[in-house]
C-alpha cells in the first residue's frame, strides 16, 4: 500500500484526468515499473467507481422523493390558498392604484383642461357648463371602470386556481420547443419538433357539462359555476332571496337553494324540508312573497374557462408565418392527438377547447371573440370557419357574458 500523499495525489489526478503533461510521464513510468503503484491505481479506480455508483443510487432515491413531494405540492391547492388571496389583494390594490391615477388625471384635466383647450380669455357661460358636462361623463366612466376591474380580476384569479396542475414553467418550456435544435438529432425528431409554436397546455382545455352546480357569494357578488351555457334570460330569472332570519337563498327554476356567504366555492344544495334549516318551512308552506331590498348584488354566470380543465391528450401547434388561407388539420398519433393550425394566432390569447356532449367530442378554437368549430376528422388542411352562434349551441359556451346587476329580494 502506498501511503505517500504525493502518490495518492497523482492517482487522484490520473483518475480525474487532470494530470499535467509532466505528471503524465511520471505516472506512465510508475505504472510500468512499479507494480505496487499499478495495484494502487486499480484499487482507487474501484473506490472512485464505487463511490460514484453509491452516490448516484442515493441521489436517485432522493430525487424520487423530491418528485413525490413536487407532485404532492401540485395536487394540494390548499397550500396555494393564501397565495391566491394575496394575489387577489395585489389585483385589488392594482385596481385601486389605477383608479387613483385616472382620478388624478381627471382632476388635472378639470383644472387645466379648459384653460389649455380654450385660448380665448373671455369664456362665455355656456362653454363652461359644457366642459362641466363632459367631466361628469368622465366620472361616470371611472365608476364603471372600477366596477369592471372588481368583477373581472377575481375571475382571472379563479382560472389560475383551477389550473393548479398546470405548471407555467412547463408551458413556457413547451413554447421553447422550436428553439431547441440539435444538429445531431435524427430526421424523425426534427419532424416531431417542427418549426411550429406550441400552444401552452393551460390554453388547451376540455369541458364536460356537469350536473353539479357550485357558487361563491361574497362582497355583493354571486357567481354560479357549472352552467356556462346558461342564457341571458335564464340568468336574469335567477333571484337571490333573503328571509326574515337573514338567511340567503337562490331561486332557480322554481327550486330554492341554500346560500351562505362564501369565498370558497361551495356546492349548491337544494333546500330540503327535512333539513329544516334557516326557517325553510316558511318557504314551503306558501310561495314566498318578496320585495326588492336595498342590497345590491351582481350575478355572474361563470364561463367555460373556469368550468374546464386542462386537456393533456391534445397538442396544439400553430404557424404564424403565413399570409394565405387560415387552415387546420388533426394528426392522430399513437398516443397523442395533434392539431396543427396555420393561422395568425396569439400565443397568449388563443384557446382550444374540447367539449364533450352525449359521448361525442366537439373541438373549438377561440381567440377573443372569434370562435371556430374544428372537425376532428379533418386530416388535410381545412379552412378555418367561424361559427354561427345562433345555430351552434355549444359555441355559445365561448361568448363572454356580462355580469348582471340586480338586488337581493327580501321576504315580506
Amino acid at each position: 500500500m502506498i501511503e505517500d500523499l504525493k502518490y495518492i495525489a497523482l492517482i487522484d489526478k490520473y483518475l480525474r484526468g487532470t494530470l499535467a503533461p509532466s505528471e503524465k510521464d511520471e505516472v506512465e513510468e510508475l505504472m510500468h515499473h512499479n507494480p505496487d503503484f499499478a495495484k494502487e491505481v486499480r484499487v482507487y479506480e474501484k473506490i472512485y467507481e464505487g463511490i460514484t455508483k453509491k452516490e448516484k443510487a442515493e441521489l436517485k432515491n432522493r430525487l424520487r422523493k423530491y418528485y413525490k413531494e413536487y407532485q404532492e405540492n401540485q395536487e394540494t391547492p390548499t397550500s396555494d390558498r393564501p397565495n391566491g388571496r394575496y394575489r387577489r389583494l395585489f389585483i385589488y390594490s392594482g385596481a385601486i392604484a389605477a383608479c387613483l391615477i385616472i382620478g388624478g388625471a381627471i382632476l388635472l384635466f378639470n383644472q387645466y383642461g379648459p384653460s389649455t383647450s380654450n385660448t380665448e380669455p373671455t369664456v362665455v357661460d355656456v362653454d363652461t357648463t359644457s366642459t362641466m358636462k363632459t367631466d361628469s361623463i368622465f366620472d361616470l366612466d371611472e365608476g364603471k371602470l372600477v366596477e369592471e376591474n372588481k368583477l373581472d380580476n377575481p375571475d382571472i384569479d379563479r382560472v389560475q386556481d383551477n389550473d393548479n396542475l398546470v405548471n407555467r414553467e412547463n408551458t413556457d418550456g413547451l413554447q421553447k420547443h422550436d428553439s431547441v435544435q440539435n444538429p445531431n438529432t435524427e430526421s424523425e425528431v426534427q419532424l416531431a419538433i417542427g418549426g411550429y409554436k406550441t400552444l401552452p397546455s393551460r390554453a388547451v382545455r376540455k369541458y364536460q357539462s356537469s350536473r353539479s352546480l357550485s357558487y361563491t357569494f361574497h362582497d355583493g357578488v354571486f357567481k354560479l359555476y357549472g352552467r356556462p351555457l346558461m342564457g341571458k334570460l335564464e340568468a336574469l330569472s335567477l333571484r337571490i332571496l333573503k328571509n326574515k332570519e337573514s338567511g340567503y337563498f337562490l331561486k332557480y327554476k322554481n327550486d330554492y337553494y341554500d346560500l351562505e356567504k362564501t369565498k370558497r366555492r361551495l356546492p349548491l344544495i337544494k333546500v330540503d324540508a327535512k333539513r329544516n334549516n334557516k326557517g325553510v318551512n316558511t318557504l314551503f308552506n306558501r310561495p314566498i312573497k318578496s320585495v326588492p331590498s336595498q342590497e345590491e348584488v351582481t350575478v355572474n354566470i361563470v364561463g367555460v374557462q373556469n368550468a374546464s380543465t386542462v386537456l393533456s391528450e391534445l397538442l396544439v401547434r400553430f404557424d404564424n408565418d403565413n399570409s394565405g388561407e387560415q387552415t387546420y388539420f388533426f394528426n392522430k398519433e399513437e398516443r397523442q392527438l395533434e392539431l396543427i393550425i396555420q393561422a395568425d394566432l396569439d400565443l397568449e390569447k388563443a384557446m382550444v377547447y374540447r367539449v364533450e356532449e352525449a359521448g361525442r367530442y366537439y373541438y373549438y378554437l377561440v381567440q377573443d371573440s372569434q370562435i371556430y368549430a374544428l372537425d376532428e376528422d379533418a386530416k388535410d388542411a381545412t379552412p378555418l370557419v367561424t361559427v354561427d352562434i345562433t345555430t351552434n349551441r355549444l359555441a355559445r359556451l365561448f361568448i363572454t357574458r356580462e355580469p348582471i346587476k340586480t338586488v337581493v329580494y327580501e321576504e315580506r
Partner: protein
Amino acid sequence: MTDQELLSQLKSGNEECLGQLYAHLGMVKSWICRNNGNEEDALDVFQEAIIVFYKNVISGKYEQRSKISTYLFEISKRQWLNQLNRRKRHEQPREANGFESKFEEELIYEVTHRGPRLKDYLGRAMSRLGEPCKSLLETAIFLGMRMEDIAERFNYSSARSASQQKLRCLKKLRSSISYEDIIALEQ
C-alpha cells in the same frame, strides 16, 4: 423560483431544490412519448438529466447559456436517442412494460453476481470512515466540486488545505480496504 435563484440555492447546498426541476418533466414526457418511449422512460431519462445538470452545476461546468428547461430537454433528448440507438443495435425486443424488463435485469444480476456489490461495499467503508471525510469525498468525487468551493463549504482556509484534507481522507479510506476484496467485486 427563477433559474438564477435555483442555481444559487443548489450551489449553497440546498439539494432539495432539484425537485423544482420536475416542472419541466412535461415537455420531456411528451417528446419521448412521441418518439417510441413511454412515461416510465421519460421519468428515467429526465432523472438522469437532472443528475447530469446537478453535477455540472456543482463542478462549475454548467454555463448558463440558455434556460435550465432547455438544457434539461437537450440532455434528455440526447440520452433518449442514445438509448434508442443502443436498443436498435442489440435488437432487443422491448417489453411493453418498462418495469418488467428492469426487473429481469435485476434478476439476471442477482443470478450472476452473488457477492456483495461494489457500491454496497463502499457504502460500508464510507460510513466507517465518518465525517467530515465521508461528505468531503462524496462531494469531491461524485459531484466533482472544485476545491475552492469545497474549502468554502467545509470550512477550510484554502483550496490547498481542502486538497490536502481530501488526500488524507482518501488514504484513510484506502487503509480500511483490502486489495483482494475490492478487486474481486465486479460491479
